[in-house]
C-alpha cells in the first residue's frame, strides 16, 4: 500500500510543473475524471458525498419509519424491496440493524468527512494560501479515487444473503467479527477510506507548510485553512490506529485469531457460516460447535483502539466546519474575526484534548472506574475551548453590519445548534449522569446536533459561500434561504425531542421500542419525529435543485462576489488549472474588514498597501496582538 505514496513522489518538486505545461490539450478523462486539479477533485468529492448523503438519508428515513410505525409497510417502496430486507413491506429486525449500522457509517465516513475534509480541503487550501495546486497533485487524485471503490464495497454488503454489517457503526466485537461477510466488506471499506483520508491529510499538511504564497505567515491564514490543517494532523495520527484495529478484527474473522475474543466464547464460529440472525433458528446445536476460538483476547481492547481514532474523528468532522463558519461570519458581519489567535489556540486545544478523552465513550464499558474519573475530567476540560469559540463568534457579529445571505444564515445556524450540541455534551461528559443517558436517544440527539446541526450546516454554509468560485455561477439566494428555513426548523423538530426520549430512557438501536412498557407512551412522539425527519429529508432536494438550476441559469459570478479578503477571491471568477492569473503576494491578515482609514469596508490580503505604509503595518500588529 505504500506504492501509491512512493509513486506520488514522482510528482513532487520540480517536475510537478510538467503537468501544467500541456494543460490545454488534455483529454476529457484527464480533465474531468482522473484529474489532478484540486478543484476538480473537490467537485468529485462533492458529487460522491452528495450521492452518499442521499443514500444515508434514505437509511435514516427507513429507520424512522420503523420507530414510528413498527411492523407497518413502508410507504411507496415497502412492497418492492427484496424479501431479505422486508417482510410484508415492513423492515425486518435484521435489516433494521443493518440500516442503523450503515446509516452511521455512511454518514460519517462517506458524507461528513469527505465533504468537510475532502471537498473543502481540496478546494480551499490551495486557493486560500494562494498557490496553484496541492503539493502532490497525483497523490491527491489517488486519494479521491479510493473513495468510489470503498463506497461500492460498503454497499455491496446489502446484496449478500446474510446482509451487510449489523454491529453498529462502532463494530464492537465479539458481535462484529462473529457476523458474516457483510462485516468483512464493512471493514475493508473502512480500511480503504481511511487510507484515502491519510493520503489526503498528508497532502494538506505538506501543501499548507510548503506552498503558502509569498508573505503569507502561518498566523495570517484564514481559519478555514487552520481548521483543515489541524484536522489533517488528527487524521494522520488517528486513522492509522483504526487501520490497525481493523486489521485485527479482519484477522479475527478470517484467520480465526482472537485479539478481541476471550476464552470459551459461545459465539458464532468464525467460518462465516453464522450470522446473528441465523443463530436463533439453529438454537442449541450452534452453541455447541461455537467453542472454536483460541481465546485470550479482550473485547474492550477494540473499543479503546476504535475510540482512539473515532473521538478525534468527531473533531475531524467539526473543525473544518468551525473554520468555515469563522470565515463566513467575519465576511458577512463585515468585521474582523474576534480573537483570531484565541480561535486558533482553541482549535489546537480541542485537537490535543481530543486525543486524550476517548474513554468517555466507554464509561459503561467495564473499564476501570478509576480511568473513568480521568477521562471525565479531561472531557470536561474540552468544553472550555468550545466555549471560547462560541464567545468569539458572538464577539465577531457584535457591532457588525450583518448581511443575511444563505451562507451566513447557515453559519449562524451552526452557532445556534452547536450551542445546544455542546451543552448536551456536558451531560455525557459527567460520568455518573452518563450512566443513565448512555446508549439512549440523548446521545443520538447530541451527535446529530453536533454532526448534522454542526458539521452539515457549516458545510451548507461553505457550499453557498464558495459555489461561485467553484462553478463561476451564483447560487440562487431565495432558494438558498428557503432551503435554510426548512432545514433549520425541521432539523430542530426532528432532533430536539430526541433529548426528551433519551431522558425517558429510550434506548438507541432498538428495532421495536414498544416491547418495553415504559417506552410505549413515546410512540406519538416518535411519530412526530419521523414526520419532521421526512420533511427535513425532502427539504434537501431544494439544495440539489438549486445547484442544478444555478449551474444552468445562475448569474455569472464576479471575481469577488462577497467582497471578501482571503486569497481565493483574487483568482478569476472560474479559475482554471493553475488557479491564479497574477502573482500573489500577501500583505495582511484575512480579516481586515471595515478598516477605519478605508473607503471600502474590506481590505483584501493581496492588495498592495497604498499611501502610508505604516498604517497597514499597524493594522497587522493589531491583529497579531489579539
Amino acid at each position, binding site marked *: 500500500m505504500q506504492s501509491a505514496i*512512493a509513486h506520488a513522489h514522482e510528482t513532487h518538486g520540480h517536475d510537478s*510543473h510538467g503537468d501544467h505545461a500541456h494543460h490545454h490539450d488534455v483529454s476529457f478523462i484527464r480533465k474531468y475524471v482522473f484529474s489532478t486539479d484540486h478543484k476538480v477533485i473537490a467537485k468529485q468529492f462533492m458529487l460522491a458525498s452528495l450521492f452518499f448523503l442521499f443514500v444515508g438519508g434514505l437509511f435514516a428515513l427507513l429507520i424512522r419509519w420503523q420507530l414510528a410505525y413498527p411492523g407497518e409497510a413502508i410507504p411507496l417502496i415497502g412492497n418492492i424491496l427484496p424479501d431479505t430486507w422486508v417482510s410484508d413491506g415492513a423492515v425486518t429486525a435484521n435489516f433494521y440493524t443493518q440500516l442503523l449500522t450503515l446509516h452511521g457509517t455512511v454518514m460519517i465516513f462517506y458524507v461528513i468527512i469527505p465533504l468537510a475534509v475532502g471537498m473543502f480541503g481540496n478546494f480551499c487550501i490551495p486557493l486560500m494560501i494562494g*498557490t496553484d495546486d496541492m503539493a502532490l497533485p497525483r497523490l491527491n487524485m489517488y486519494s479521491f479515487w479510493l473513495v468510489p471503490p470503498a463506497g461500492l464495497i460498503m454497499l455491496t454488503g446489502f446484496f449478500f444473503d446474510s446482509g451487510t454489517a449489523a454491529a453498529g457503526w462502532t463494530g464492537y466485537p465479539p458481535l462484529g467479527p462473529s457476523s458474516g461477510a457483510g462485516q468483512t466488506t464493512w471493514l475493508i471499506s473502512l480500511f480503504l477510506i481511511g487510507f484515502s483520508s491519510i493520503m489526503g491529510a498528508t497532502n494538506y499538511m505538506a501543501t499548507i507548510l510548503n506552498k*503558502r504564497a509569498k508573505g503569507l505567515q502561518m498566523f495570517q491564514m484564514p481559519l478555514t485553512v487552520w481548521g483543515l490543517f489541524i484536522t489533517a494532523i488528527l487524521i494522520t495520527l488517528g486513522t492509522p490506529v483504526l487501520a490497525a484495529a481493523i486489521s485485527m478484527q479482519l484477522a479475527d474473522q478470517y484467520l480465526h485469531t482472537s*485479539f478481541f475474543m476471550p476464552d470459551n466464547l459461545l459465539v458464532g464460529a468464525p467460518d462465516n457460516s453464522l450470522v446473528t440472525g441465523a443463530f436463533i433458528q439453529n438454537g442449541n446445536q450452534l452453541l455447541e460447535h461455537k467453542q472454536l476460538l483460541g481465546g*485470550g483476547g479482550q473485547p474492550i481492547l477494540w473499543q479503546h483502539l476504535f475510540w482512539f481514532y473515532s473521538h478525534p474523528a468527531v473533531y475531524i468532522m467539526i473543525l473544518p466546519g468551525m473554520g468555515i463558519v469563522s470565515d463566513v461570519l467575519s465576511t458577512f458581519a463585515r468585521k474582523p474575526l474576534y480573537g483570531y489567535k484565541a480561535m486558533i489556540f482553541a482549535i489546537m486545544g480541542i485537537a490535543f484534548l481530543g486525543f486524550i478523552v476517548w474513554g468517555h465513550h466507554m464509561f459503561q464499558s467495564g473499564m476501570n472506574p478509576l480511568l473513568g474519573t480521568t477521562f471525565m475530567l479531561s472531557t470536561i476540560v474540552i468544553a472550555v475551548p468550545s466555549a471560547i469559540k462560541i464567545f468569539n463568534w458572538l464577539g465577531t457579529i457584535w457591532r457588525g453590519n450583518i448581511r443575511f445571505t444563505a451562507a451566513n444564515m447557515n453559519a449562524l445556524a451552526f452557532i445556534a445548534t452547536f450551542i445546544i450540541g455542546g451543552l448536551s455534551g456536558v451531560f455525557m461528559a459527567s460520568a455518573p449522569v452518563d450512566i443513565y443517558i448512555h446508549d439512549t436517544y440523548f446521545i443520538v440527539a447530541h451527535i446529530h446536533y453536533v454532526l448534522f446541526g454542526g458539521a452539515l450546516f457549516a458545510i451548507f454554509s461553505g457550499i453557498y459561500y464558495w459555489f461561485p468560485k467553484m462553478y463561476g455561477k451564483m447560487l440562487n439566494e431565495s432558494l438558498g434561504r428557503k432551503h435554510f428555513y426548512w432545514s433549520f426548523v425541521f432539523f430542530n423538530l426532528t432532533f430536539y425531542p430526541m433529548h426528551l426520549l433519551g431522558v425517558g430512557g429510550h434506548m438507541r438501536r432498538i428495532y421495536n421500542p414498544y416491547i418495553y412498557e415504559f417506552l410505549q407512551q413515546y410512540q406519538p412522539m416518535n411519530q412526530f419525529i419521523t414526520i419532521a425527519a421526512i420533511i427535513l429529508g425532502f427539504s434537501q432536494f431544494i439544495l440539489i435543485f438549486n445547484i442544478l438550476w444555478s449551474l444552468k441559469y445562475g448569474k455569472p459570478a464576479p471575481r469577488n462576489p462577497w467582497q471578501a479578503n482571503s486569497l481565493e477571491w483574487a483568482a478569476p471568477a472560474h479559475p482554471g488549472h493553475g488557479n491564479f492569473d497574477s502573482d500573489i503576494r500577501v500583505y495582511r491578515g484575512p480579516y481586515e474588514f471595515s478598516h477605519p482609514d478605508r473607503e471600502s469596508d474590506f481590505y483584501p490580503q493581496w492588495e498592495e498597501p497604498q499611501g502610508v505604509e505604516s498604517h497597514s503595518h499597524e493594522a497587522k500588529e493589531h491583529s497579531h496582538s489579539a
Partner: protein
Amino acid sequence: MSSGLSLAHEPVTKVPHGKLAMWIFLASEIMFFTGFFGAFIVLRNSNLELFSHSAAELTKGLALLNTFILIGSSLTMALSILNLEKGNTGKFKLFLGLTILCGFGFLIVKTIEYSTKFNHHIFPWTNVFFSFYFLMTGFHAIHVIAGMIPMTYMFIKAFTKKGYNHPVKVETLGLYWHFVDLVWIFLFPVLYLIFPAH
C-alpha cells in the same frame, strides 16, 4: 509554468514536498504500529504465561540474521543516496542493487521462518501470541515489499539511457526504508527476545 507566474516557489520549509509528505506519512505509520504494540502489551500482560512459552518457540537465530540483513540494507540505502548526490551513478546502482538484494534476503529468511512455523503446526489462530507474531511480522513484510517496488523501478531506470537522477526521491524512499528497519528494531526484542527462557 505556462503563464510565467511564480506561484510554485521554493518550499517554504526548505524541505521538498515529497520528503515532507513522507515524514508526515511516517508519523502516521508510527501510529499504525502503535496500535499493534499497544494491543500487544495489553494482551501480553493478561496472558503472561502463554506469551512466555510461545515466544520460546520462535527461531531467534533467523530473526537475528534478519536484523543484520535489514541493518545492512539501511546502510547500503544511505550509501546509495550519498553516491547519487555526489553524482557517482555507478556506486549508486551498486548500493541500490545491494539494498534490493537485502530486501529479498529478508523475505526469503522470513519465508523459511514462516514455513518452519507451519510445519510445527503453528498458525495465526494457534494462540494470541502467534496472532500478534504473524500479523505484526506480516505487516512488516508487506512494508518491505512495498518499499522494494519503487526501489526496483529506480534501479531499472538507472540502467536506461537517461539514467535515474533524482536524489531527493531516492532520499525520500530511503526515509521509508529506514523506517521499516526501525520497526524491525522494535519487533525483534519485543517478539523474540524479552521473554526469558524459563
